[in-house]
């Protein structure tokens, strides 16, 4: 259902499908059509031009009717091509699944054999097989199928290895299934789409290959002809009577092209990564489509977000990841942004410098003021010159975020030279200094290491060094310690704290951990469903949270030293941001929900001297306002 509609949506694939249906239908009804016998020669009528009497497409060098031969040849070529593809796919997949699933020595021996076969340029093997079996269409089919088995086997093995290490295979084992059952009911259903994709993208190839062998005179033998041998026989008359070549050649082209279009469509429809549009290339900067007034700079903050809105447009859905965020940070200040996954905290951080992947990300409103200047919608070159120079990022996973093929020295040098015309030697010395400043031991040796040669903690230090490379004013740290162990996290956090105090850095620190916020941040903003629900000085928020979400979230985090206990869980799930409720997004999970909560937007209002909260019934009463 979903598959067919996806396929139909792809217009090229649909075109391919229609052509293929026509060709297959034609091939099926060929015996019923009133055609001349394809093999009866009539040398008197040889080389008739197309559209001549009694021969719509003309005749060949022996006076045989080309139309008839074309249709019969198509029938033969299709049958042979599909048969070869099915044979190669079935045997190849079986070998691949067995090798991939059992692994170890079985895998090793099978794959050595496959490698051996792949060590031949494939046609040599096909030629050798045909030489041994003798020319003939059946033998050509066997040869083409045989040389393609290794390709299928290798491809399917790769997929199977991935699946065999998935946890659901372990779960099936613990459910009492044996290997045969696991292969049939757990592995195979997950591999079949890949087999179908591989087959649909190679059927065309198989048709070309069998036609090729026939073209060489090693496939179908006269008088029987497939498309390849028609072309082969016509070759000697290429210059005098080109139509005898063009007719079968064009037919092969049409068939293979239609199959390839269809195959691409099948692949796109079956490959889940393509389904979500994930294979789009992110543009250099996030797309901006702001409607409504653009906020102006209103205070003297170093970096200020005003009503920032970022959405993801996936097909016909709109995910409002960031729904109007106001934040600001002053020189030397550390602002924590805390929230659960899907709260929009990372998207907010990435939106600042236009680093949200786009498509599908779009900034639809608001402004980011850096020293009073709006960065959203600033020309790319302006944005680029600020990135990493004045405003730098530290990301979460230090292995994925460093380039695997360049030394960390090269990557640090590049960070500097992207902004400052520094000589390579000076830049290298600077890189070593940077590594020292993040307390990497043996910095002058480590500068030539590759990221994979370092531990997670050391890599994150490199990430920090890279952010510091141009002495920026603001560092945006997106969960920089989440992927690290606690003892390493403690080292990194204390490093960041020292650096910001020594250098007067402003930091926006994205995290989900209250403990980290408490230790590092001066102020904290709590996000829920794309909006800030509460903001204020860290000690105020942690001691007297005003928003029910904040207080309940803190209550359900176990904290070391409190012993064994029941946790106060929040019932329900966060709302999905493509379907946000009217009013407060937390209302459905809130114990204090009341009438006004779902009636219209609730503003982020001042609460006491330093706090702001988006709630009509805050947890703490407003402190007495002195007159």
């Amino acid at each position: 259902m979903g598959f067919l509609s996806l396929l139909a949506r792809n217009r090229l694939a649909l075109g391919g499908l229609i052509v293929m249906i026509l060709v297959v239908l034609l091939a099926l009804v060929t015996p019923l059509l009133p055609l001349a016998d394809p093999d009866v020669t009539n040398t008197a009528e040889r080389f008739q031009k197309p559209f001549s009497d009694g021969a719509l497409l003309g005749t060949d060098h022996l006076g045989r009717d080309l139309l008839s031969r074309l249709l019969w040849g198509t029938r033969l070529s299709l049958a042979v091509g599909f048969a070869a593809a099915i044979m190669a796919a079935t045997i190849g997949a079986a070998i691949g699944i067995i090798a991939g699933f059992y692994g170890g020595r079985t895998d090793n021996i099978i794959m050595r054999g496959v490698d051996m076969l792949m060590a031949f340029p494939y046609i040599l093997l096909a030629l050798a097989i045909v030489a041994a079996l003798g020319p003939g269409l059946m033998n050509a089919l066997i040869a083409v199928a045989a040389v393609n088995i290794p390709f299928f086997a290798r491809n399917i093995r790769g997929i199977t290895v991935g699946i065999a290490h998935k946890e659901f295979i372990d779960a099936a084992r613990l459910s009492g299934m044996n290997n045969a059952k696991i292969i049939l009911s757990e592995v195979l259903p997950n591999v079949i789409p890949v087999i179908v994709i591989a087959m649909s993208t190679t059927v065309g190839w198989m048709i070309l290959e069998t036609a090729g062998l026939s073209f060489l005179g090693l496939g179908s033998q006269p008088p029987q002809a497939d498309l390849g041998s028609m072309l082969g026989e016509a070759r000697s008359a290429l210059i005098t009577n080109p139509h005898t070549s063009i007719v079968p050649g064009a037919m092969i082209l049409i068939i293979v092209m239609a199959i390839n279009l269809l195959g691409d469509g099948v692949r796109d429809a079956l490959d889940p990564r393509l389904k979500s549009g994930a294979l789009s290339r992110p543009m250099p900067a996030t797309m901006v489509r702001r409607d409504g007034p653009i906020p102006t700079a209103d205070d003297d903050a170093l970096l200020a977000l005003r009503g920032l809105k970022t959405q993801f447009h996936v097909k016909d859905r709109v995910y409002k990841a960031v729904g109007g965020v106001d934040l600001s940070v002053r020189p030397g200040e550390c602002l924590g942004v805390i929230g659960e996954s899907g709260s929009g905290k990372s998207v907010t951080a990435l939106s600042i410098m236009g680093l949200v992947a786009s498509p599908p990300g779009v900034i639809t409103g608001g402004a980011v003021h850096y020293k009073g200047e709006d960065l959203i919608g600033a020309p790319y070159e302006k944005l680029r010159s600020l990135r990493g120079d004045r405003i730098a990022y530290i990301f979460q996973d230090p292995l994925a975020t460093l380039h695997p093929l360049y030394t960390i020295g090269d990557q640090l040098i590049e960070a500097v030279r992207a902004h400052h015309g520094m000589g390579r030697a000076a830049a290298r010395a600077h890189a070593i200094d940077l590594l020292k400043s993040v307390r990497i031991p043996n910095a002058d040796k480590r500068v030539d290491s590759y990221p994979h040669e370092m531990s997670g903690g050391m890599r994150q230090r490199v990430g920090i060094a890279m952010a510091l490379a141009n002495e920026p004013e603001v560092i945006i740290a997106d969960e920089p310690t989440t992927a690290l162990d606690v003892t390493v996290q403690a080292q990194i956090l204390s490093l960041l704290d020292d650096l910001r105090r020594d250098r007067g850095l402003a930091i926006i620190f994205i995290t989900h951990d209250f403990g980290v916020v408490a230790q590092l941040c001066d102020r904290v903003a709590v996000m829920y469903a794309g909006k800030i629900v509460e903001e204020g000085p860290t000690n105020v928020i942690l001691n007297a949270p005003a928003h029910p979400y904040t207080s309940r979230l803190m209550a359900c985090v176990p904290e070391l030293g409190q012993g064994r206990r029941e946790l106060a869980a929040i019932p329900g799930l966060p709302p999905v941001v493509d379907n946000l409720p009217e009013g407060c997004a937390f209302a459905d999970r809130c114990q204090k929900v009341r009438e006004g909560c779902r009636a219209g937007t609730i503003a982020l209002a001042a609460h006491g001297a330093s706090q702001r909260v988006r709630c009509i019934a805050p947890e703490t009463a407003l402190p007495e306002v002195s007159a």
Partner: protein
Amino acid sequence: MAGYILKRLISAIPVLFGISIIVFVIMAMIPGDPATAILGSYATPENVEKLNRDLGLDKPMVLRYFIWLGNMLQGDFGRSFSLNREVLDEVLERFGATLVLAGTAFVLCSILGVAAGVVSAARQYGFADKAITFAVLLGISIPSFFLGMMMILIFAVQLRWFPVSGMWPIYGARDLSALISHLTLPALALAVVATGVIARLSRSAMLEVLRQDFIRTARAKGVHERSVIWRHALRAAMVSIIPVLGVQAGFVLSGAVYIEMVFQWPGVGRMLVDAILKRDILLVQGGVVFVAACYVMFNIAVDVAQSMLDPRIKT
């Protein structure tokens, strides 16, 4: 690095061994005996028997294999009965011609394919992407032998820009310009399919890489977009493109068989097809083993290139 190359060369020995066994076994499956094929239908039983003994065909198969292998290692590939010439001499001469054709086509398709893939990915869904995607589709759908024939028809017969066939002019100097004019059409025809495949895979490798976190890091550093594409993304994408180039080299070598037929190029592919049709087993055996061995060596070079590119591969 030298140690790695040595290691790869040593690991090629069992592969070459395996190749020779596969070829030998396939050839041994041939029904009927070669002696009859050589002597023709007028052979007397005594003649056949004598020839069989001369050729060593009365010995057990394993022994025959080792004799054949031993001879081959000493450079004796046997004698082709259809050409009445040493197999090795013939193969070497023909393989040179094939190398010129396939090598040119391989260089063409590598450069054009990767460039087209990168441009296509960098301009995803733009005009260039759509045009390249369509051209690629056409390229991988057209049979190379048909393409070659059409090229002859248009560029050689109609426009007379290039000669119709052959490697050298029948009369006249065998110089570089003559070679180039003969080479252009077949090399292009041969390169088209592989260019399509390489462009396709380069495009998807680039798209895959461009979504990686380290690309975002490069952008966050303020690196120029040109450098993001050509320095950061392409380098990482090459890790998956280079093995494809290795495989495509095999396809180019394979496609050369058709192109040699169409353009009457005096290469090893045409030699093999003729030898198969004439049942000249020793020539087929020798040709296949020789070309496969060269291809194995080429793939070692590909692996070495890969290890120089990717420091994560242990050398």
